[in-house]
């Protein structure tokens, strides 16, 4: 084992133990991002920890593989499916009027929403068509689609196209930060919002 890989091993171990902050924390996250080995180690530590604590494995490498396969397939498959792309605005690396690179994770993130939302919608519609109109549940589910508010074209008319817009991201973040007034906020809502990344802060 080289010195580097030794240091990396220790870094992952310290991250699992929650001992890192600041630069070291960022360094560990960056390592996990770029190194499949480090990610495997991360999982392995959790599996070992869980096994020692509970006598059973809660996390497994299969899950990591699954997520990885999922991501790869999403990248290859989800984008073209029924996706209506607004000109330029959704192209990776497209520039805005100031010539500034629009970028990053958000692009992919919103585009996937659109792609999958349209796949999902097609699925639902197809299924409902197959089932016929005899079921009250299906009617309930399709009610908003059948009777859209006048000013709001819904997904059944045209797939909801997600324009990547930093302003929308900012409002979404503001809603998460200051609008989440719910009795479920302190048990779970806060954790959910701190965990889930959607839009730049």
């Amino acid at each position, binding site marked *: 084992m080289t010195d580097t890989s030794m240091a990396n091993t220790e870094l992952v171990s310290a991250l699992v133990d929650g001992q890192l902050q600041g630069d070291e924390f960022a360094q560990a996250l960056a390592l996990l991002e770029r190194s499949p080995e480090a990610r495997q180690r991360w999982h392995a530590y959790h599996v070992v920890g869980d096994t020692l604590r509970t006598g059973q494995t*809660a996390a497994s490498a299969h899950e990591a593989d699954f997520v990885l396969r999922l991501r790869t397939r999403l990248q290859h498959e989800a984008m073209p499916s029924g996706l209506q792309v607004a000109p330029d605005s959704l192209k990776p690396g497209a520039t805005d009027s100031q010539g500034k690179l629009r970028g990053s994770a958000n692009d992919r993130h919103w585009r996937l929403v659109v792609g999958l939302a349209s796949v999902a919608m097609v699925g639902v519609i197809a299924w409902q068509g197959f089932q016929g109109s005899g079921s009250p549940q299906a009617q309930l589910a399709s009610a908003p689609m059948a009777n859209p508010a006048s000013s709001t074209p819904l997904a059944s008319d045209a797939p909801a196209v997600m324009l990547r817009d930093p302003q929308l991201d900012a409002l979404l973040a503001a809603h998460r930060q200051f609008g989440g007034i719910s009795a479920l906020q*302190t048990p779970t809502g806060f954790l959910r919002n701190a965990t889930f990344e959607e839009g730049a802060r």
Partner: protein
Amino acid sequence: MRRLLPGLLSLGLLVCASAAWAQNTSKAPASQAPSFHESASIGHWLMRLHDAARSRSYVGTFVVTAGDSMSSSRIWHVCDGQQQIERVDALTGTARSTFRRNEQVMTFLPERRVVISENRDALGLFPNLLSRADSSIARHYSLKVLGRQRVAGLDSDVAQLVPTDALRFGYRVWTERETGVVVKLQTLDAAQTVLEQAAFSELKLGEPVNMAKLAALMDDTRGYKVEKTELIKTTAAQEGWLFKGQVAGFKPMACHKRVHSESSARQANTLQWVFSDGLASVSLFIENFDAKRHSAMVSHDQFAMGATHMLTHRLGEWWITAVGEVPAQTLAIFAQGLERKQ
């Protein structure tokens, strides 16, 4: 397989299958009137969830699935009856570490060497609001006990908050049997499709967490630039706005303008008016219509991300954005019920 299923569901790849499943399993329609006992116990049940968070320490790994995205974090939670301190280290996406001491929140962004400091008053509203007699939760949701399941290796009770109308989503909640700690939460639409799920994949209850150490980490902002977001409290009436619409159960809860130390004057002009029915909340953002920024969105005015929907709407010289964990048609009622005072 149980662990893989939420991810698959969230993809929408199994939408047909899940819709069929919902059809077969949800025999009780959402409109079914709750028994007195069930509706009376919602408040107590929610209080138990809050008490668990206030009196238990734990360490765990938390996984959120919304839309097609999956995020996870490592969580440390400690409390002493008075104070709760929580640390959430994101394991996916941008590196960030979020600390919460009761209503005070600090988000460390190591890549930018920035820490965002906020005071989230909304976090302190409950459980005081729950004990109020006029709480609308029991009127608009019924509590249905579903049974028992194991989550993250822990025996859990499963209950569902069933909405009484189509204006809001339902929730399925798993609580650890002994402590009442929420271990899993799903948001469901009218067809019982899971829109979003948040769950511990691994959780150690009663794990000793050093409160003083967490507090010290939270307060240690050396090497970081502190950005503080302040809100100017105001009222909609004072800002010239009225809500003429009727959305059963939703009450105006807060109204403010945002002042961010780094933001432009433009952002500070955005008004945020928040409504809640006790479980779901809706933010109405009101700003000046700006053709350059907003015209591209006029023809595509509706978006969804997991359970969160967004809708934009032009109202004369104003630009309205409604955001909330509610169905799109509820947001439409909100956006259309807004009026400028003459």
